């Protein structure tokens, strides 16, 4: 028997990872999930596609006639490719910091709550109200009513680990 190539081992590992992430959302244990949750699954696997890229990815795994559900069978090969090709890599801390600095044009080291809300809900791929509220609940220092973004990034990274 030929020894498994590194690619085969990697594929096998990714398969297990993807299946587990999928199963958490597969409430009826019938290898399907609600299409609205597929973004969370993809992102929870460490990928950071934009909303546009996510949209394309969903189109790829959806049935020809969309049912509102995604089947594992279709999702598994597509997602395995994504992971193998290391597409949609996570955003490094310095890139994130730089993005905040761009928005903080006066270089004050913070954004006011109003500025943050305006940028996040009016520019780019705007946040929903729920996303915005959730971000604010951890980002805004209630005393100054602003976000000290450097501290915020450090805190978020620590929280997750």
């Amino acid at each position, binding site marked *: 028997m030929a020894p498994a190539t590194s690619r085969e081992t990697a594929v096998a590992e990714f398969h*297990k*990872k993807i299946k*587990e*992430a999928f*199963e*958490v*959302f597969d409430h*009826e*244990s*019938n290898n*399907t999930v609600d299409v609205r949750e597929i*973004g*969370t*699954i*993809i*992102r*929870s696997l*460490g*990928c*950071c*596609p*934009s*909303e546009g890229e996510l949209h394309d990815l969903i189109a790829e795994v959806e049935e020809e006639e969309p049912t509102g*559900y995604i089947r594992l069978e279709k999702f598994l090969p597509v997602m395995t490719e994504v992971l193998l090709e290391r597409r949609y890599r*996570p*955003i490094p801390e310095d*890139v*994130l910091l*730089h*993005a*905040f600095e*761009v*928005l903080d044009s006066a270089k004050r080291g913070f954004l006011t709550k109003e500025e943050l809300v305006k*940028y*996040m809900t009016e*520019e*780019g*791929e*705007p*946040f929903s109200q729920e*996303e915005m*509220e*959730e*971000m604010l*609940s*951890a980002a805004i220092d*209630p005393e100054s009513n602003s976000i000290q973004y450097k501290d915020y990034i450090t805190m*978020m990274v620590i*929280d*997750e680990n």
Partner: protein
Amino acid sequence: MGCSCSSVADDGSKQVIRAATIIQNWYRGYRARLKARQRCALTIFRSIEYADEQGQMQLSNFFSFMFENYAKAREKDPNLVTQLFGSSFPDTYEEEDYTKMINVPDSYNGPRLQFPLTFNDIEILIEGFKEQKILHPHYVLAVLHEAKKVLMKMPNVSHIRTLPYNEITVCGDLHGKLEDLLLIFYKNGLPSDDIPYVFNGDFVDRGKNSIEILMILLVSLLVYPKDLRLNRGNHEDILMNMRYGFTKEIMQKYKLYGREILKVLEEVYTWLPIATIIDNEILIMHGGLSMSTDLNLLHRLERHKMKSVLMPPVQSDEDTTADVRSKIGGQKGKTTLSQHEWKQVIDILWSDPRSKRGCYPNKSRGGGCYFGPDVTAKILSKYQMKFLIRSHECKPDGYEICHDGKVITVFSASNYYEEGSNRGAYVKLGRYSAPRFFQYQVTNSTCPRPLHQRVSTIEGSAIRILKERMVSRKTDLVRTFELHDCSKSGKLSLSQWALSMESVLELNLPWRSLSVHLVNRDKDGKVEYMSSFQDVQIKKPVKEAHSSLIETLYRYRSDLQIIFNVIDTDHSGLISMEEFRDMWKLFKTHYGVHVDDIQVDELANQMDLNKDGSIDFNEFLKAFHVVHKFDTLHKSDTLAFQE
């Protein structure tokens, strides 16, 4: 010039858009990882909840088994048989007189009710409960007796109509969570002839204010019998309460009159209607449907004969048992429902909808069935119903719509598993409008806690109960781990470990992602499987006992407690050594538990602390609990009624 200016501005705005996109993108990733962890925690809660329910349902087989063996062996102990299958209800009038004899002393400072009850009493009751007052047992019993009389006059399936400009509010499971009920009333108004309500079962168990909820609902029913409907849920069952907390709550709050309250309560349960129909087109019941659901039969069966899901009717052609039962029942006719009728009721109280077509047994709960969209369509069209409202399942958003909009699940206990685990919801139905949903979440803090804090709390307590599960199966787990660990290194590959966990615990969970919280892994990624047990152990009430026996007792402690309570016909909390041994033998045989009789004998002798030949099993079983090493002790702050 103007041209280049605008291109600088363009560059600037492009940069802003790119920066915003990066931040949004990063945040969405962060949020998704937290959401996945939150879901994973909910999966743990749900799997363990259902596995536990399965255990509870298996008790019914045990009771049948026990009836055949134990009763015969003990010369058909009539008390036992009465307790299990017969009508255990003594004369109601005597009980009511008894209630009148309980005096409410002048020193009592809780809510005082005035019969006949009025709207004012609902308010008084709620005000008292907000101040954490305990309702006097005299009032509790009086309300139960009055409610029983009203409920007895109601049909199995009660009908209610919307008025042109009056919506009906439907609430799902409350599970003893008073704050949720009060929040609903605050948002939606107290029950009245203008604000009709249907409460769709599972008022009690799990939360710490089941009696308060039940009292508010029953008093409201007595004041507005035409405008309020209460459906029976699968927790309106005296034997379910023994496992899920309501019995304990009553005994803690009403030490002296607890038994009496439980007795009347059992009757009240059996008289609760099992379904409600709005405007002849909206069907409301606690669980759901099955392929054989027959509304006509459900209309006419004698619902008060449905005592408990754990007491299924014994096959009537089994001569001996039928004989004994008819003798004990002392009544003409049957004292229980037929098998078919019984199953009809179980199905509507226990079933869950699924997207798969067809109808198949509800394996994860062990009772009722799963029903597909085709079953829904068939049954609803057969009875010309537009849609079904059911409860019974916790949903992250408090409600969920499935089966092409024909099934609505509404669940009203927010934070059901843990603070932040789910929202609660209620639904309002008007004659000319589509159902309107209202969501809420009870919270102690004024501002919402950040997502990661909420997730950490939920995750922490999910891991905690999972570890308790693991330690209760430690012997079997270690045996399985060692079997696969051929080199005796104390380590397994992640996959092998995950497989072993799955096969022993019989829980379908994402073990690989959970491994971070459950075991240590070495630098090569191998799992050091014994590390799971470093910080948890079962506290042994008796030092000398063998650990496999301790694990078995811990694992089955809820089952054993119910069984002992059922045999303990005089409610003394004591059983004789002989009864204990007999019961244990039956239990062992039935559950296929391998424990040495000598060990059990030793244990029984040790349990008999004062050497009087009897065992206080409640105290004994309470002594078994898992100790988490790095825990601060929880202070229990239960109030008791001063009698």
